[in-house]
């Protein structure tokens, strides 16, 4: 066993950490959060140039990483700095699905993604699907040599900015069947596609996407008809690895800020960290942070395993990160006191990121139940 990063990944981490430390402070992020699009095209382009997006794809796909530990390294740093740009959505989810399933013409988009010139969104969840990946009621019907999509997709992150959406739709089977689900590459300009956008509490934007008889050519399908589920599950596993690492990075920032504050904030004539009631709770957070780090390492290290082994570790990590995340966010705010309630203070955004990560790709409870079910499988 060896818990050190490879030289390449160490360099990636150093480069990204340095860039974000210099270019992505709280003031910058708060300005981005308040901007209309909720993201910075400039930061996106610069990070693409640094090779950050390329690190999220394998060599065969045209990148130079794409493994669990590459995702973990990149997203831990993005989380540490509280980056709100949609790397998860454009690259890991939608981009990953195109790279995994696309034909040669479709795969040509991967180059545009890596160079930072293409924005994407993955439109999969629906108003009544909650965290179930198999529940797809949006339909795809083959008609007159084309495909007609009908349905509604819920909380599609980055949908407004996306040049294309990867949309899941059912071609056969019952609403909750794994078989019968297909993926389609839908240009944002398609007729019948409505995107109603809104801000997200933890930064970035999402939208309700309505597909009202969206007409596509047959070539818009990604992969084989009705057989997309395994790829969706695998990509959500990668996204969960990234999200867990991102949350770990955010928790590192939260605990660092809290430690600093406990050391400098004085009440009753002494630093508040000298009160045992707070000092012991800070110690608990640091213990749990190490647990979180191990959970991320386990998820990243097993991402390329067979499905069962991989998914067990993903659910374990998402459950543990969800629990620890709530503790770290709430305790960091509480130990700070009022200052942590202000938008202006760095912890505000970081705490929201940590807690709201529990609302993507399955929450603490969902993954506990899934862990149990996978153990029985």
């Amino acid at each position, binding site marked *: 066993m060896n818990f050190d990063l490879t030289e390449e990944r160490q360099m990636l981490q150093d480069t990204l950490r340095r860039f974000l430390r210099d270019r992505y402070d709280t003031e910058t992020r708060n300005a981005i959060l308040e901007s209309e699009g909720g993201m910075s095209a400039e930061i996106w382009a610069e990070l693409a140039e640094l090779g950050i997006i390329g690190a999220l794809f394998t060599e065969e796909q045209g990148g130079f990483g794409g493994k669990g530990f590459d995702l973990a390294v990149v997203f831990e740093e993005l989380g540490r700095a509280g980056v709100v740009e949609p790397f998860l959505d454009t690259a890991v989810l939608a981009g990953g699905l195109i790279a995994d399933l696309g034909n040669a013409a479709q795969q040509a988009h991967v180059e545009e993604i890596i160079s930072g010139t293409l924005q994407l969104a993955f439109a999969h969840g629906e108003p009544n699907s909650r965290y179930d990946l198999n529940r797809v009621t949006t339909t795809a019907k083959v008609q007159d040599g084309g495909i007609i999509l009908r349905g509604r997709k819920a*909380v599609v992150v980055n949908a407004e900015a996306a040049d294309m959406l990867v949309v899941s739709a059912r071609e056969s089977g019952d609403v909750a069947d794994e078989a019968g689900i297909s993926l389609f590459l839908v240009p944002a300009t398609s007729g019948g596609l409505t995107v*109603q956008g809104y801000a997200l*509490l933890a930064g970035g934007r999402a939208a309700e996407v309505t597909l009202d008889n969206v007409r596509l050519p047959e070539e818009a399908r990604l992969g084989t008809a009705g057989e997309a589920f395994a790829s969706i599950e695998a990509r959500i596993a990668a996204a969960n690895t990234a999200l867990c690492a991102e949350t770990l990075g955010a928790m590192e920032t939260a605990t660092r800020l809290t430690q600093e504050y406990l050391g400098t904030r004085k009440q009753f004539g002494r630093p508040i960290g000298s009160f045992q*009631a707070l000092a012991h709770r800070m110690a608990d957070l640091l213990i749990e942070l190490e647990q979180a780090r191990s959970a991320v390492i386990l998820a990243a290290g097993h991402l390329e395993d067979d499905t069962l082994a991989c998914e067990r570790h993903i659910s374990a990590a998402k459950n543990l990160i969800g629990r620890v995340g709530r503790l770290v966010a709430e305790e960091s705010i509480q130990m700070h006191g009022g200052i942590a309630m202000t*938008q*202006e203070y760095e912890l505000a955004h970081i705490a929201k990121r940590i807690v709201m990560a529990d609302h993507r790709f399955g929450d603490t409870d969902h993954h506990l139940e899934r862990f149990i079910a996978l153990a029985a499988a």
Partner: protein
Amino acid sequence: MDLSYTEEERAFRADVRMFLQDKLPNDLSDKVRNGQELGKEGHDRWHAILNAQGWLATNWPAEFGGAAWNAVQRHIFEEEAAAAYAPRIVPFGLSMLAPVLQKFGSKEQNDYWLPRILSGEDWWCQGYSEPGAGSDLASLKTAAVRDGDHYIVNGQKTWTTLGQHANMIFCLVRTDKSVKQQEGISFLLIDMDTPGIEVRPIVLLDGGAEVNEVWFTDVKVPAENLVGEENKGWTYAKYLLTHERTNIAGVGFSQAGLTAVKRIAKAEMAGGRPLIENPHFAARVAQVEIDLMAMSTTNLRIVSKAAAGQAPGVESSMLKVKGTIIRQEINDLARRAAGIYAMPFASEAVEGSNMALPNPHAAGPVAAQYFNNRKLSIFGGSNEIQRQIIAKTTLGGAA
């Protein structure tokens, strides 16, 4: 012991329910239900409706024009009001300043200020905390220096809730720097329109701007606005804080919150079934409900004892800790219940923007509320301070 309500109490509940049905405006209850801000006009309207009914100053003695309800009546009203999504009653004048004036103020002060609180003419806010004086409130630095018939006030207050609507502020100010911190503090009433006062909003992490910084630069305050004696303000402040905590358990809010959690979890689907039927989620809800049942009774026990002439001491600290833990747990459940629809966000700062939120299961801005209510365990004396009070009282010198 008798846990059943008397006939009079049941009749009272029926009256309250009828009143709420008839008089609570739908637009206000809709806003409360959806977690939207009421604005000054909304608060003023509800204040006037309660005043017309004589149900505004329920905690004031009859001699000051109060309804003088007992603990059970207040409990019943709180339950019914929360269930009907009635707005909270803004407490600064009614429940915080008024008891202090009634106990320590002059007759002239009571005759002048109390009717103005009832009529809504004055909107009060609280000038207690300062950037350097939070949990350690007695270290406050805002100074008032006597100059003939006036005090000249300089300094800064913070976390002033709804200060943007207020025309009056009651402040703790330092009038003597040469003595022990607690012995040099006075209680001063200040007109917010006085030159030298500046109110700056603080945007909170949920995007709302309900609290403010208030800056004082050479603010001239008439000496008759001093409450009680100079340098006795700490005693009055502590008296006010115990009053602030009489409703601190927030039983009504928790009951309404739990009802909302169940409503969301019935509409939200998980695995093709309503979330409320998921054993794991149902267990979480049940756990909080069990805690709330007991806490509601603890609250009644303690408040009834206080009404019978015994001041709630350490028990009010216990209620604050347990009450806020339960409320925050319910906020957490509401957030969980909403699933992916907890993610969207419309800033309260943008009027009417809530309507733009996708909300197929009528959850409302549950995640924003979850974050906003982290304040419950911080303000009014943090839960750490409350635990310290409990420990000190019960362990004495060992704590």
